[in-house]
């Protein structure tokens, strides 16, 4: 793990779980697998705090445990999984676009709590939805259940590893830790539940207990003494499935940008057809015949078979090679070249960065070297039609930024410098890695700046929150307009201005984080796909 990744993990853990969990988490990321006592000793934290932290981390699928020889349990952190916390808003938003508000809240609850039983999710989501509905209306558990089942069927949520049902004929000494298993076929199996009920609104008497720490609230809700029907069956969000969806989205929109709406719809159809048949890490989808594609086009689409064939041919001939032709049967067999598509997307990202950082003439040189693979200094000047001095300057800028590298090709076995070719080339994989590393650093900077801005204005923020709370309680007890005005004026105009500026800045920084994470996703997908092929 690079320093940049560790730093980013540290910031994410601290923001979401507090300093103690951050300390333990970062320690495990740095040192690898460790047993409980070693963690406590090395971090100088009390054993109880370490236990608390580990429970939280395991609950959120950030740490796993393994039983080693002599019964020692060791804990291991998953750095890349911690980094996924950046993407949570995107997962939740995607669930909203696919399965509307119900889906959105289901995924949000699963991400907030790490693991939950289906019945707990359904109940919580029904309650939350009921809060937002008009007076007198409630959300039925059955509707939430249905959405949950659909999410499970399309693999967006999956079962967590579970304790296998063992026969108690041989009760030896209890194991140092339960061994959890997971089986492919049961991973999306929804338990047969008959959840009957409706969401409940929070009654106002609950809200009066303002002094109570919020932690007590979940316990209030477990009023019922009924046994939980799906006890022990936990669900989590399936991040890989979301990633597959994002990848498909990226490919479809790339095709739409490069060609037209119809081509992108065809590609979308092909990807949809391949969702179940092709594992997400495959370099290309299973071949689909033109006839099959024609039958699977969305209902509204009225293009004739010939037009479809023309589009498919165009797509297959495109130099970007998103679509490839793999045979002639069935009217033509076509595949989507997933790996090539990811490569093109990563390359486009690199080109865009070069353009925005160094200018469009530099970008021209960059694209030139990409296209020709290897070029000498002189050739670059000639092909790009840029004067030697400027071309040199630009090449060196890109070289020191590690976007371009120098390849030595010796003419003689003794590698004498005067008899060696020095060629400029773009190594896409290493440039992508470099850029990815930079993205991690960027987000860490963005988070630190946001925390700094918030801290600077802490006093003012607290004051504003107090005033809001006072206004809210006064409104609830029916205060007059004049009284409310008076309270509002407790915050002066310049202070209001300051708060506005703070809000704008924090929003900008947060939005930047989201945008950088999109780039991270593309680069990571490309790198992962490339590594799998090696």
């Amino acid at each position, binding site marked *: 793990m690079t320093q940049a990744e560790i730093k980013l993990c540290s910031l994410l853990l601290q*923001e979401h*779980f*507090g300093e103690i969990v951050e300390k333990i988490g970062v320690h495990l990321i740095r040192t690898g697998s460790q047993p409980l006592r070693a963690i406590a000793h090395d971090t100088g934290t009390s054993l109880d705090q370490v236990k608390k932290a580990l429970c939280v981390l395991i609950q959120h699928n950030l740490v796993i445990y393994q039983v080693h020889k002599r019964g020692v349990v060791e804990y291991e952190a998953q750095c890349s999984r911690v980094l996924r916390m950046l993407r*949570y808003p995107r997962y939740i938003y995607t669930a909203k676009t696919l399965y509307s508000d119900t889906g959105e809240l289901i995924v949000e609850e699963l991400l*907030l709590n790490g693991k939950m039983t289906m019945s707990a999710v359904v109940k919580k989501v029904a309650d939350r939805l009921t809060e937002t509905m008009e007076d007198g209306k409630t959300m039925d558990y059955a509707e939430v259940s249905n959405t949950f089942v659909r999410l499970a069927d399309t693999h967006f949520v999956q079962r967590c590893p579970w304790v296998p049902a063992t026969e108690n004929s041989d009760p030896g000494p209890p194991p140092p830790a339960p061994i959890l298993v997971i089986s492919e076929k049961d991973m999306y199996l929804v338990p047969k539940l008959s959840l009957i009920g409706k969401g409940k609104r929070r009654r106002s008497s609950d809200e009066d207990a303002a002094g109570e720490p919020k932690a007590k609230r979940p316990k*209030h809700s*477990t009023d019922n003494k009924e046994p939980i029907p799906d006890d022990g069956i936990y669900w989590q969000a399936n991040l890989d499935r979301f990633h597959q969806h994002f990848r498909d989205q990226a490919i479809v929109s790339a095709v739409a940008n490069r060609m037209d709406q119809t081509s992108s719809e065809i590609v979308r159809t092909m990807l949809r057809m391949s969702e179940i048949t092709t594992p997400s890490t495959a370099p290309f989808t299973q071949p689909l015949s033109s006839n099959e594609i024609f039958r699977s086009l969305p209902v509204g689409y009225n293009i004739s078979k010939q037009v479809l064939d023309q589009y498919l041919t165009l797509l297959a001939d495109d130099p970007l090679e998103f679509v490839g032709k793999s045979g002639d049967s069935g009217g033509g067999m076509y595949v989507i070249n997933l790996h090539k598509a990811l490569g093109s997307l990563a390359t486009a990202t690199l080109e865009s960065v070069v353009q925005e950082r160094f200018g469009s003439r530099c970008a021209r040189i960059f694209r030139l070297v990409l296209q020709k693979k290897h070029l000498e200094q*002189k050739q670059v000047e000639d092909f790009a039609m840029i004067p030697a001095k400027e071309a040199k300057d630009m090449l060196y800028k890109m070289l020191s930024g590690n976007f371009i590298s120098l390849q030595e090709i010796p003419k003689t076995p003794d590698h004498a410098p005067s008899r*060696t070719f020095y060629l400029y080339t773009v190594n896409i994989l290493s440039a992508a890695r470099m850029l990815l590393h930079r993205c991690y650093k960027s987000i860490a900077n963005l988070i630190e700046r946001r925390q700094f801005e918030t801290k600077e204005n802490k006093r003012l923020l607290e004051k504003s929150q107090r005033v809001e709370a006072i206004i809210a309680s006064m409104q609830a007890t029916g205060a007059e307009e004049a009284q409310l005005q008076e309270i509002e004026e407790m915050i002066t105009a310049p202070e209001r201005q300051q708060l506005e500026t703070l809000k704008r800045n924090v929003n900008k920084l947060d939005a930047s984080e989201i945008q950088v994470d999109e780039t991270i996703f593309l680069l990571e997908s490309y790198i992962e796909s490339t590594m799998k092929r090696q």
Partner: protein
Amino acid sequence: GRGGRGRGRGGHMTFSVEAVGIGRGEALPPPTLQPSPLFPPLEYKPVPLQAGEEIEYMLALKQEFRGAMKSLPYFIKPSAPKKDIERYSDKYQMPGPAENAIEWSPDWRQLPPELKIRVQKTRKERRTVPAPKRQAKVSADKEEAIKKLETLEKKEEEVTSEEEEE
């Protein structure tokens, strides 16, 4: 190092510099003797951030998520610093969570037993707590808090009535 001696170019390099385009007699830039500046100047203005409904919504989701996490029991606050002197406001503050107790109930069937915390305090024993007991304990805490507030109220009444007499 290789390019370390920047004066003129008396030093020899391991490769032919003509091949990479440095002409004869041309001076190389001076060596860099310090790390790059913290805020290097930007040559080109960055492209504005994406905007639109989607981004706005995700922004709201992000901020709400962050806020929600801070108030869930998974957020472990560092233990309160030891009090230096007894403060007036201490009477009014709710007793915080016991240093050792965990504030949510993990499923211990799926965790190594070594992670369970043995809590000393008799009032807040939280081994494997079934639902009814939890509620009883919560209301016990509530009652305790209410009693405390009531006694404080009474004390205050005494104080104010004393003041009035003066």
